[in-house]
């Protein structure tokens, strides 16, 4: 190696150092993105949302009126699953099936014995730090689709954390604006997305004290 090429290495090392810094800074290494724990009951979102066409707000019924989205009460599950049991005979051209998960649910909530019901200890996936206020209703009522943040839950056999939930991720939307068409696209509403293509991006306040107090 000539001495000239030795000198040429210095900027290369410098560039690698900068790249490493940037990578670590922007990678969101502290995020729990992708976290996908096994839940006590393997609730199949695709079946409920895609096949049965249930709206997110049917179960997460506080999402449009409270900072908390709300989790369905056991009674909400049992509203249907009192009738829809673990074993389903073949009907309407569909084969018979036995669901272990509905069995588990009914073990938590025995039919006809409400005093024996137990709480279902769901494992939390999406968690913002305690010093962040995220009012769900402001976002839902502004037309932000659930999938914009939570990802394609309707496709998730097992729910995982879709976004990094880092501050920079929040700010991308707050500063640049939320594109309704993209949100609808994520929700699988391609028709609506096309119709909303021309909509102005919806911006949100980016003052610190809007979320941190």
């Amino acid at each position, binding site marked *: 190696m000539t001495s000239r090429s030795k000198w040429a290495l210095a900027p290369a090392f410098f560039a690698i150092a900068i790249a490493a810094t940037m990578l670590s800074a922007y990678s969101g290494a502290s995020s729990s993105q992708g976290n996908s724990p096994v839940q006590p009951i393997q609730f199949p979102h695709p079946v409920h949302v895609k096949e049965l066409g249930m709206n997110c707000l049917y179960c997460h019924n506080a999402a449009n009126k409270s900072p908390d989205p709300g989790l369905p009460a056991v009674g909400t599950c049992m509203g249907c699953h009192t009738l829809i049991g673990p074993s389903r005979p073949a009907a309407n051209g569909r084969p018979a099936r036995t669901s272990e998960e509905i069995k588990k649910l009914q073990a938590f909530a025995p039919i006809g014995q409400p005093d024996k019901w137990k709480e*279902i200890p769901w494992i*939390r996936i999406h968690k913002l730090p305690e010093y962040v206020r995220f009012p769900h209703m402001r976002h839902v009522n502004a037309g932000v689709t659930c999938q914009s943040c939570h990802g394609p839950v309707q496709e998730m056999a097992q729910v995982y954390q879709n976004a990094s939930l880092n501050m920079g991720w929040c700010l991308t939307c707050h500063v640049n604006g939320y594109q309704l068409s993209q949100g609808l696209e994520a929700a699988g509403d391609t028709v609506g997305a096309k119709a909303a293509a021309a909509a102005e991006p919806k911006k949100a306040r980016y003052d610190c004290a809007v979320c941190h107090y």
Partner: protein
Amino acid sequence: MTQNTGPSGVKRRQFLKVLGAAGAATTAVGCTNEQVEKLIPYLNSPDQTVPGVSTYYTTSCRECAAACGIIAEVRDGRAVKLEGNPDHPVNKGALCAKGQSGLQGLYNPDRYRGPMIREGGKLVPTTWDKAIDTLVQKLGESRGAAANAAFINGPDSGSFAGYLDGWLGGYGFGSHLQYDPGADLAVEAANLAGYGVAMPKLDFASAKLVISIGADYLDGWGASVPQQMAFADARAKLADGPRVIYIGARRSLTGLNADTWIACQPGGEEAIARALLSAVGGNGGTVAAAAQASGVTEATLQGIVDELRGTKPSLVVSGVSTPGAGVIAGLCVDINKAAGNVGVTVKPGEALTGFGTSVGVGAMQGIIERANAGTLKLLMVRGVNPAYDTPKAMGFAAAMAKVPFKVSFSSYPDETSELCDLVLPDDHALESWGDVQATPGTIGLQQPVMDRIFDTRASADVMMMAARKDATLAARYPQKSYRDVVVARYGSAALTAALPKGMVSGNITGRAAAPMSVPAGAMGGDGEFFLVTYPHATLGMGEGANKPWLQELPDPVSKIVWQSWVEIHPATAKRLGVAAGDHLTVTTASGAVTAPAYIYLGIRPDTVAVAHGQGHTRYGRYAENLGVNALDVLGATWNAAGGLALTQGKARVAKAAEHSQLVTLEGSARQHGRGIGQALTVAELVSGATTEHHELPGDASHEFLPGLRSPVANDAQGDLGDPTSKDKGMYDPNHWSGMAKRRWAMTIDLARCTGCSACVTACYAENNIPTVGARWQGRSLRPFHTADGAGWDTRPGANILKGREMAWLRIERYFEGGEDGSSEFDTRFVPMMCQHCGNAPCEPVCPVYATYHAPDGLNVQVYNRCVGTRYCSNGCPYKVRYFNWHGYGEKERRQYAFPEPLHLQLNPDVTVRGKGVMEKCTFCVQRVREAENLAKLENRELQPDEFTTACAQACPSRAIVFGDAADPNWSVAKMVENSRGYHVFEELNTFTAVVYLKKVNHPAAGSAAAAVPAAAAAPAQGAH
């Protein structure tokens, strides 16, 4: 905050054990632990509740006899805040510190977690079945003879009293006693005799002259909140308001709010009252006799007498605590009658009906005698602590030991319950049903606002359960619980309709009997000094001592916390060679107490004073082993109504060897001419002369312009900003976010503020402010500690001795004048919190933008960005920034401020700050955001005065007004233009968002202060 979401039906709310899906936001900043967190949903959704959204329930406050209406904010099944019910006739939305601290009674970490029974000499946990069986057995053993049993209850003006007597009667026992050690029974008796009601409404606003003879109507005497409201409303009439004269040996908070203090010798009040009676044409006494008895100059007294004669209408209130109080109270009734004040300033028709149902130590004497005689077989105590709050000289505890079986219904382990054989812990008032007579014709309802947190039972339910096990009584108690009794009493439909308001019309019958009449004691004792004892303004007679908010709330007069003290005049202290903090031993025939000296201008040189409330030996971790119990030096002396005489005569005072630093929040009691609390005399106000203006010699004059100097967006850029700048971002009023259209601001009317400090507690409750004065919260004194805690600073208030209190809002109390020891000094109470400066000196120094100016005018503190340089505090001229020196919000720390279950009170909307983080008043930004969110949800703009901060909400004086100063429709926008307005340290160009309105003083006609505007104030202002 005042939206009532009424229940749809009268049924116990089905709050399950779980706290809902919200999860308690109690983790501290900086903890990003990745522990697996569970989300526990409800089993069945409770009606009307949305997770994460507060529900509001009306109920009645049971912390004192006044029976204020309150609204409990309940979030996910736990009460997080108590506020006054704005529709309630007694308190009209305000709530005192004591009332707000009800939550700390509910969540007190030392509460009994279940029934206890004495086994092998110790109280051990038991089951309710066993406990009730034991109770039934003991009731059965004693039944039949009225004298066999006694039931001592706390003050209760509701129908429970009648219910209780009915239950006692079923066993053949006599009626219960409602013992209230703090009640002024002499006045209640005299009022009842003279006006027909125990506590008439005092209409200060209608009076032109108020004379208080020892009546501390701002210190907790009577019904604190309504009196304070009326008083503040009266003073807010400024020039048309009353002049206030206070007569007493010690200048209490009420005295400090008076224009003139007549330092009367204890026992001399009667002669003064007689002289005053003569003045209004009654058959009284002479001024000369009054001067002789009171140690006040004849000229001074003549001035008052003349003033009373010449001023109509007037208001004379008595609240003397000597044995002769009954006579004086009667004289005052006569004065008011003779002066034609009844119906004008004294309004029996609008009486406070929570009073007049209690008895005092005079009645307790009977129980003690029965116990000593051995005739008392069964003693039941509920809601009161006689083993602590009767004078030790009466020997209650010793007598109690002679009773074969003692039952306590106390929720907390206290001196009395610890002597009992069976403890049946009562539900907290916020967990139980009940009612209370608020005003004539109005009954305040009490409903549970949340499910009980411990295995406790409402006493009424316990009685019912016991009775149902008795064959002869079972038929009388067919209901399932006391709830059904209440429902039956008011009717299901009527109650359902009434609960959202929290009140029904009607009067409760079958309440406790009229006050007793006994021979009054006499002043006595030997020694050089008169001894005055008085109920602590917030701890009362000790019942508040187990609540850390109240322990940490500075006494409004002395500003001392977590400690007892002896008040002594500076001249006397000098004579005795006593410095502040030197211990003084006060000795009477009954006993002695030793406490550090507090040198106080507002006490007669021949008098010392000690507050009650401390000195608990058993009342939970926050109360125990703090200070002294002033009841130890009182004898069994009472007034004609059987109420304990708190001033019994003379005592010997000696300097002790010890010295304790006073645990006080006061740095300097003087303003040193800095114009922090400013005042005007009426003459100046009327003439428009702007005097006592704070001037800074040598500095360029800043003529004060009322209002906010830089109201909206400009303040963000300040005077030095470039007004032509195109890029102001969100600070541009035309920015799409619209944030810069608002300017949150506050006015504080010092003419209204009495210094009561309710706002301080409201701030603690709203903003999750840790209390830091408990013994275990001190710092380390050496590197290695033994397991028993040696090596830590375990002095009470150890952190506060180091100035580390966390109160975002403090009330500064400055004295003006009186440097020569005279009684003529003025007091300025200045609530001081973050001033949200337009040009905040704290902001530019922060290296990480943890504090900055928000477009809507807030000075924001971002806790999670704070690295803890503490530079902002150095920059702040108002010194309103507080640092988390220890991990007060971290459970695993020794200094943790919210031991379980106190943490359930934490406001989920406010971050709990971690170690090493700076914090300060945020103008309740969480309420701003909540209101904005609500408005957005309802698709509307914010309404003027739609919400307010916690301090303004609680303020019983209505001194604080908060709102958007940029919008002329908000009240605050008008208030900031008031000609009395000023900014503190205006010359520093901080352009604060808090405007203070000057206090207005009413000096005596013909006095120097009244005649020459500002002449009296000027020397005091100039000197330093």
